């Protein structure tokens, strides 16, 4: 009884009202546009979804079983993983190196840093439009360069052998915010460590390998996992560049197809729950790592 009274008192207090005023308008959006549709997705993934009469018939685990049985799902998952591996191969080291070398520059550092950021100020649709043109078999630069090098001409974005390569090649340019994150991490390293190393006679290369790189390993690990989660959910760039051609169908694109072309909402949602479980497990690792990094 006493506890109940205490709660009632708290609820009626002015302070509580003020808290609600600050919190509820925003929190409502989280509930309406995130938690509610999420629960719906989870719920409908157990139904043979019927547009006319939602949610339709109970399906049990049928949608999940069909997902795991469908070869398309596994092919698209494998395609997604390959895209991730390619973006690692082309682009993972580049921003790290760019940041490491930018940190070594004394004269014109601000200008260079600024120029590195310019691509982040270009809308992604513009960048994708340029790349689509570059890979275009007629008039595109890619074929000019590749035939000059003796590799012949290709329909880069649509040939099964070259599609994934072409989709991820642009990672090699680095720059933008990715580079900036490492640059900031390097600048956050205590400068006293460097002074001490200089007194001990360490040269620039030694300082880079023995001080800078070990100190940004945490950031590198987090970036790695972020690349992984964002790669697993790749959609926009692949869709804009290839329109979802067979050879480059990612998981998210498969879900999009299932739901909007084949109108099989139930299975689309089951597939999306599966991909969420995968990204979730990656994120948990990331949070653990980040937590350890912040502590250490």
């Amino acid at each position, binding site marked *: 009884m006493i506890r109940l009274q205490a709660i009632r008192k708290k609820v009626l207090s002015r302070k509580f009202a003020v808290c609600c005023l600050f919190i509820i308008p925003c929190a409502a959006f989280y509930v309406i546009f995130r938690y509610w549709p999420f629960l719906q997705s989870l719920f409908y993934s157990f139904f043979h979804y019927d547009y006319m009469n939602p949610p339709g018939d109970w399906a049990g685990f049928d949608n999940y079983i069909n997902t795991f049985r469908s070869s398309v799902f596994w092919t698209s998952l494998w395609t997604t993983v390959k895209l991730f591996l390619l973006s690692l191969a082309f682009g993972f080291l580049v921003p790290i190196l760019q940041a490491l070398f930018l940190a*070594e520059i004394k004269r014109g550092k601000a200008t260079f840093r600024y120029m590195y950021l310019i691509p982040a100020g*270009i809308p992604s649709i513009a960048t994708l439009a340029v790349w689509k043109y570059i890979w275009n078999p007629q008039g595109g630069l890619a074929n000019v360069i590749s035939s000059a090098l003796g590799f012949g001409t290709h329909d880069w974005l649509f040939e099964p052998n070259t599609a994934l390569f072409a989709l991820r090649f642009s990672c090699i340019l680095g720059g933008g915010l990715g580079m900036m994150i490492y640059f900031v991490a390097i600048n956050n390293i205590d400068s006293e460590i460097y002074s001490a190393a200089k007194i001990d006679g360490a040269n620039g290369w030694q300082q880079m390998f023995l001080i800078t790189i070990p100190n940004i390993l945490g950031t590198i690990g987090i970036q790695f996992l972020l690349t992984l989660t964002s790669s697993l959910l790749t959609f926009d760039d692949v869709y804009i560049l290839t329109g979802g051609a067979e050879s480059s169908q990612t998981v998210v694109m498969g879900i999009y197809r299932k739901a909007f072309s084949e109108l099989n909402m139930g299975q689309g949602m089951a597939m999306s729950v599966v991909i969420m479980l995968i990204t979730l497990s990656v994120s948990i690792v990331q949070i653990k790592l980040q937590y350890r990094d912040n502590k250490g």
Partner: protein
Amino acid sequence: MSLRIVAYVFTILFLIMLLFPIYWLFTTSTKDVMQSYETPPEMFPTMPYTYEVYLEVPDGYTAEDFREDSAYLAWPVANECTNRRFAGLRIMAGYNGMIQYKCEISSSDFKLYKSELFPGAVSVNIIRNTMEKVLSVMDREKMFSLNSSGVYAQRGGNEYSDAVEADLNRFAEEASIKATVSSVGTQRSFSGMFSSYVVAWLRFETSGYTFFRFVQNSLIISIAGVLLQWLLTGMFAYAMARLVSAKTSRILMVFAILTMMIPSIVIVLPLYGMIERLQLKNNLIAVILPAVPSAMNLFLFKNFFEGIPNDLNEAARVDGASELRIFFQLYVPLSVPIFSVVAMLTFTGAWNEFFWPSLVLNQEPYMTLPVIINALMNAPGSSGLRDYPLSMAMSVIAAVPIFIVFLFFQKYLTEGMVFTGLKG
């Protein structure tokens, strides 16, 4: 090797590579379709040619005669010129080199109005049969100036001008125009490089709006997004940092961060159903509202607010200020850097968003820039080839507002990353 030298070489090389696509975006936007399909491509922008035609007129030649003669000469020639770095056609007429009448049609005019006037091939007969309509369009677009003055200066030709002259003579004869073609020359035109921009801007005119309509849609979504973040997420974060207990604050943070774990594809399908039921499809609100939950922004705000000394709150409360007043009059002015960082991240994010807007804004006048650019990029142009210069011109237009925002806020970006320990 000295680290310093390696650093400079590496940085400069990578910057050249990094900025090349942006250069290529701009260069391509100044080309015409045929030029964009040339192999090897031209690496630098070049000025296309305006063809100048001088007509010697007989006695009793009237302005009306000139209008008809121009119509006969201009439209068939335009068809011939599309392959030839064509900036436009200028027909001048007068006695003995004195200019009396002028008709100017730029290549963007040809692209925009040829399909309106001549959905199929252009021929002298078709022009004759539709003369009234042709002239009304030419008048509407102010192609004629019938009180010109000046002296016609004969200009040199280029490798195509003989062919153009032959064409002109053929059409002049076929249509038996009243004046005689006396000379054809070419002149490089600077403004001709931007014809794709003109076409991009005006090609939706028949639907009653310009390209600005799409810029406006994107601007409304992005600006509304920023304002909602400032207000709603800002207040939420203030409550977490200053109003509730540490335990409640942690619970709220988990509540917010869990939404980051839900990939957008999971919620897209039910959300789409919700928007359809509320009949918000093709309404900008359908894009603005679902973007409000942003755990990243909440985190940024909360961390910053926690860095502001709590004593200020105590002092203000003693003075009898309400929490709303403390937030708006004390915290907002003290937190300009974090408001800038959030503005920039939100604006850029909203400006670039593609998937969700392409689902819920699928009718032309409601589309955002990425959606319309993608839709047009995949549609073949009038020549059956994809009009990349047009897509590039639209992309450059789309880049301008965001680049301004970026210039404006970029100094806060690094600051923001430093003081919040933002890692991605």
